[in-house]
């Protein structure tokens, strides 16, 4: 099993903003009550990692950072066919911004060991910054491909297509490198029955599961706590304000027959101005 690529995929657990559970009436997230999920962008990264392994051989290691429940997404990754997972979990990481997060993950990757390709989701749905991937690449001194929507390896070289404004570009690089995967990449395949069954079996034997999923602390990975969490973050959220409700002048049309409703709207505003000329 010496051949193939040593692949790392970075994953994050985020609040499920799509479900109403855990949303306060004012629209803020109650993180304690919110449903949790694997960051949707990371599913594309996971697909890229597993596909690369399938095509060219190797192993996939999933790495995450977060509170203990984040182990759920590593189990999910395992079900999909990832070989092992590491969760960096430490109270001192609370309130880390992207720079502090990238530092902590950089130390974790160094702890995990050698790699050829690191896949990340383009961004997370709770932070929306798309910064941690490139900042990780900077710390690791790697070339990077962001906004990647197609990825293959030919003669030991990575060929990647990345989105740019109004088009795309194709780039070539030799591993090691870091790639962030856009949501126009292939969607994650369904987990196999076998994968799900295997993880179910593993969960019954904690000692055995511990061989596949390891939770580590800042001390384990040798990260400087001063560079993590609030202390290690050069940005802070100084103030939040509710976005004022706009307009409030919406004319609501309801409780009538469908054709009546539509007619009301069409006559109530100048929609017809924009209609294409009649075809006849």
């Amino acid at each position, binding site marked *: 099993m010496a051949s193939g690529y040593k692949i790392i995929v970075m994953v994050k657990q985020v609040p499920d*903003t799509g479900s109403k559970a855990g949303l306060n009436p004012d*629209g803020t*997230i109650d993180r304690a009550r919110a449903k949790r999920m694997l960051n949707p*962008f990371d599913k594309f990264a996971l697909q890229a990692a597993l596909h690369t392994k399938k095509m060219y051989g190797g192993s996939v290691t999933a790495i995450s950072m977060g509170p203990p429940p984040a182990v759920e997404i590593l189990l999910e990754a395992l079900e999909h066919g990832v070989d092992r997972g590491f969760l960096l979990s430490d109270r001192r990481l609370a309130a880390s911004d992207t*720079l502090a997060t990238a530092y902590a993950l950089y130390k974790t990757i160094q702890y995990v060991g050698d790699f050829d390709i690191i896949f990340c989701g383009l961004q997370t749905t709770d932070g*929306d*910054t*798309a*910064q941690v991937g*490139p900042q990780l*690449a*900077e710390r690791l*001194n790697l*070339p*990077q491909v*962001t906004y990647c*929507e197609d990825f293959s390896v030919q003669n030991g070289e990575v060929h990647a297509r990345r*989105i*740019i*404004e*109004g*088009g*795309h*570009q*194709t780039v*070539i*690089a030799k591993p090691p*490198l870091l790639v962030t995967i856009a949501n*126009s990449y292939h969607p994650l395949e369904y987990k196999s029955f076998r994968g799900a069954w295997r993880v179910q079996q593993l969960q019954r034997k904690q000692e055995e599961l511990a061989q596949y999923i390891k939770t580590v602390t800042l001390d384990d990975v040798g990260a400087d706590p001063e560079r993590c969490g*609030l*202390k290690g973050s*050069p*940005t*802070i*959220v*100084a*103030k*939040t*304000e*509710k*976005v004022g409700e*706009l*307009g409030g002048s*919406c*004319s*609501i*049309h*309801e409780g009538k027959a*469908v054709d009546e*409703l*539509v007619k009301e*709207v*069409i006559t109530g*505003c*100048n*929609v017809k101005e*924009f*209609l294409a*000329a*009649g075809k006849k």
Partner: protein
Amino acid sequence: MAEEQEKKQPEKPELKDMSAICPIGEVLVIAEHILGDLQPVTLELLGAGRILADKMGQPLLCLVMGHELGDMPQRLLDHGADRVYVADHPELKNYRTLPYRRVVCDFLESLPSQPHTCLLGSTTTGRDLAPRIAAHFDTGLTADTTELDIGPYEHTSKVDPSKIGLYPNCLYAIRPSFGESLKARILGPWKNPQMATTRPGVMVPLPRESRKGEIINIPVNLQETDHRLTVKEIVREVAKGVNLTEADVIVAGGYGLGTQDGFNMLQELAGCFENSAVGASRKVVDLGWIPYQNQVGQTGKTVRPKLYIACGISGAIQHRVGMSKSSLIIAINKDPDAPIFKFAHHGIVGDCYQIIPEMIKQFKQAQSTSGVKEVVGTH
């Protein structure tokens, strides 16, 4: 009120003046171009940067990297920069992370003092480059801002006592906050340059007028390791149909459509209009129902069409920031409490699969009757 203040003031410790930590300074905009075309966001950043620089009484700088840039440096002056730094090298012709990163880092390190603020576009280039520079300098970076300002900040958190104090001139980087109906003001006054990327289409460029300023060539010293990635080709996609940002009419679909097939219906509705396009909320793009290029909102495109028809879109803040400036918004949603009904102009509470086919029917009728009218007119 006044009494309260009097009572409080003696208790309040005198805040240390931290202006030495975050002194005022220049504002730097990093320019962006694709295949020789200066990107509009660069001119928008110069417009925003001009305001920030004037607030501090400081010059506005612009750094442009490329090869054989023609009149681009002059254009950057004409749109508001006081000084344009040009890094010209054949290897910089097209954007690549590592060579551009090298030039920016070398340039910043060569300056006697760091600029106060450094701005890039929140584009596939800016979001690729900015985080690397911020990580290299261990400085703060705020993504995807929609407002920028300069103002004071009192830091009182005791987590790191050495940081407590009054910072008189901070970059306020303001952005809609994740998944919540909130705007967050993000600061990082502990180190210059304070960095931000800014959404295209939000800031207002200055009109081009002949302005004087300096154009300065800077050295380019690339290293072997900067060439680890090569660009094989750059493809401009001839937009299938109308480009979202240029459409007069956008018919957009969200998760409320229930299935991917709903978009066929939206396509048909869009087909009723001149210069129209189909848009989508993020959730359905995440689900793979429609390509990313069609996404409207914070992480997609900012649009301001004459007419925006939102079908099965709840209207969360991330979507709203991308389309709320549309001239006329019609929303269709089953849920009468959907936030979109708070800012749409017309809202129809009902099932998209009943409303939209009826709309198509009535629009087609209107089209054919207007056709008849034309015939009558020529009578």
